[in-house]
């Protein structure tokens, strides 16, 4: 909170929406291993989300719980509380896919145990003395989350508009999971960045964490695809390849490399604010019709008294 924060980009007010967690549930028993029909490479590229997100979003929640006492703005505090619940549900929802993958013969545990280590230990609280070291590590992690949220908002926006996945005949439950998640990422895309600006906002830290988050994501993602392709019980010599990635991008089944390359550095522009990218209206429109989100809406709240018969 200093002169570092002088160039504050203004958010687009019309993109703001209050946040609440949705009590979603997905039924996986009917989802096939290759839920993008006939395209294991694309299936597994997207499946890496299920490897990274359970631990990753649990970590977001863990870090943000510690960030709450730093917030001096009531609306931002409400946004962060809503963000925490949404991220907790994302983590739970993706986590439920993992046992289903194991039932289909593709046990993800060797990989997820490492991702667990990555977020719980490497990026965990560590044994730091209270004071400057501990504060620095918290601010660094808040900045990392803001950078990661830049990438997840891009992916969320992409999946909401990826009609090619429908035309290809992808599993509807998986598509609903991805788009419910994507829509909530778009819905809350400004929160992490606003929190980062509120507690620090230093440009050097922004660049540093942007680079670190990108490096970690690329490293973990390519490794995840290779892990899935090598261990898929239905593929003989399963290999991940860059060519497949470009091919799927051209078909609209994955984001195009060009679009990814344009989006990544946008975070560093001095005028950047997440509310200037993506569309809240598109996200809310999807959530209004999402099978999982509408079922969650219809659930009676458990706060009702159910003591009697």
């Amino acid at each position: 909170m200093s002169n570092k924060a002088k160039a504050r980009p203004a958010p687009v007010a019309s993109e703001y929406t209050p946040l609440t967690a949705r009590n979603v549930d997905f039924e996986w028993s009917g989802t096939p291993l290759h839920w993008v029909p006939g395209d294991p490479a694309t299936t597994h590229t997207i499946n890496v989300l299920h490897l990274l997100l359970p631990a990753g979003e649990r970590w977001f929640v863990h870090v943000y719980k510690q960030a709450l006492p730093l917030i001096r703005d009531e609306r931002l505090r409400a946004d962060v509380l809503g963000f925490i619940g949404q991220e907790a549900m994302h983590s739970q929802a993706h986590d439920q896919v993992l046992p289903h993958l194991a039932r289909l013969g593709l046990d993800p545990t060797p990989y997820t145990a490492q991702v667990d280590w990555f977020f719980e230990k490497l990026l965990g609280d560590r044994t730091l003395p209270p004071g400057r070291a501990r504060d620095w590590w918290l601010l660094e992690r808040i900045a990392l989350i803001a950078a990661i949220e830049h990438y997840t908002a891009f992916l969320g926006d992409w999946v909401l508009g990826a009609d090619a996945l429908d035309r290809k005949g992808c599993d509807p439950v998986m598509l609903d999971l991805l788009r419910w998640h994507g829509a909530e990422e778009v819905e809350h895309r400004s929160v992490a960045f606003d929190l980062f600006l509120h507690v620090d906002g230093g440009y050097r830290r922004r660049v540093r964490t942007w680079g670190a988050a990108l490096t970690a994501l690329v490293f973990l993602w390519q490794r995840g695809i290779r892990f899935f392709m090598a261990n898929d019980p239905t593929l003989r010599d399963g290999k991940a390849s860059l060519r497949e990635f470009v091919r799927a991008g051209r078909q609209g089944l994955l984001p195009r490399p060009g679009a990814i390359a344009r989006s990544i550095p946008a975070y560093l522009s001095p005028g950047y604010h997440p509310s200037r990218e993506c569309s809240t209206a598109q996200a809310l429109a999807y959530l209004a019709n999402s099978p999982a989100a509408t079922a969650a809406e219809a659930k009676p709240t458990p706060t009702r008294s159910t003591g009697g018969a």
Partner: protein
Amino acid sequence: MARVPLPRPRTVIALAAAALVVRHALGRGADRSPLWPMPALEDPISGRGRAGSGGAALRMMITERQEAADGVVRLRLTGAELPPWQPGAHLDLVLPSGTIRQYSLCGDPADTTSYTIATRLIEDGRGGSREVHEQLHEGEEVEVRGPRNRFPLVEAPAYVFVAGGIGITPILPMLRAVEAAGVPWRLVYGGRSLASMPFVAEVEKLGGPEKVSVLPEDERGRPDLAAVLAGAPEGAAVYCCGPDGLMDAVAELCAADPPGGGLHMERFAPGGARHRGGVDTAFEVELRRTGTTVSVGPKTSVLTAIREQALPDLAYSCAQGFCGTCLQRVVAGDIDHRDELLTDAERDDQMLICVSRAYGDRLVLDL
């Protein structure tokens, strides 16, 4: 000739420190890890699933509906490859209105294709039992979650079971299990009248009159609980399930003279649905690490009370018991769990403070 400048000492120290940090962070785990070069967490957290904790829902078909006694129906729900269960377990049944009620499983645990539950119609109840009796018929589909077990059968050299009316449902599979294991047991089974008591023939078949006392109140009065408990063998575990009056009486007797195998009870609503929450009473919550005590009124949650009276920055989010953000560790107290998220193991010493409450007048949290 251009000279390559020597790196500054500060740079060298910074790089060496960074290398040490990375090495320390990776540890020796990386060498043993299945996928080089990252170590794995020894007890992985992700991917364990939450089946049976409210996460996984099952659609089941009602294949049998029978009158088990006056006003009691028994339903058999059939599905494929059902999750296994142990005596004492219950099921969440999602009724057509969306209301969730919990019913004890009273069939055979070895049967992996069907679950059996029983429920009594309560004329003046708030509709849960009425819905079961009026709307669930053979051939219809219902959604269930679970099973979960909050009333497990512990190992003991002998058992005393005390059941009242529909409270026999979780006890019945226990009787079968202990009889099969050859462990000595006794059952005292009370009820208003013989015609209103379900499963009388089943329990009498499991043990003769020396083991089973069926005591309809209109014919034989109330059971002499003091005599039953006094006659319990050394080290016996006491299991009790039934109306509140019966359980309070047993609890009082056992408090005065604790049985060697402990007292185990399951709270029950009159229709046979497990209590998913007792009455909303006021109680106190001690925050052990903070060193303060807050009072929770009948109309506020533990979360609200703590945020208003002690810790304004305490994290929460959904306030409805599903996101898990407000999870706290409980040091002491009888927790009245009302969430849909936690597993049985987690419920032993943790609670979601946004919806769950206390049975007694005090909880102690590790906060």
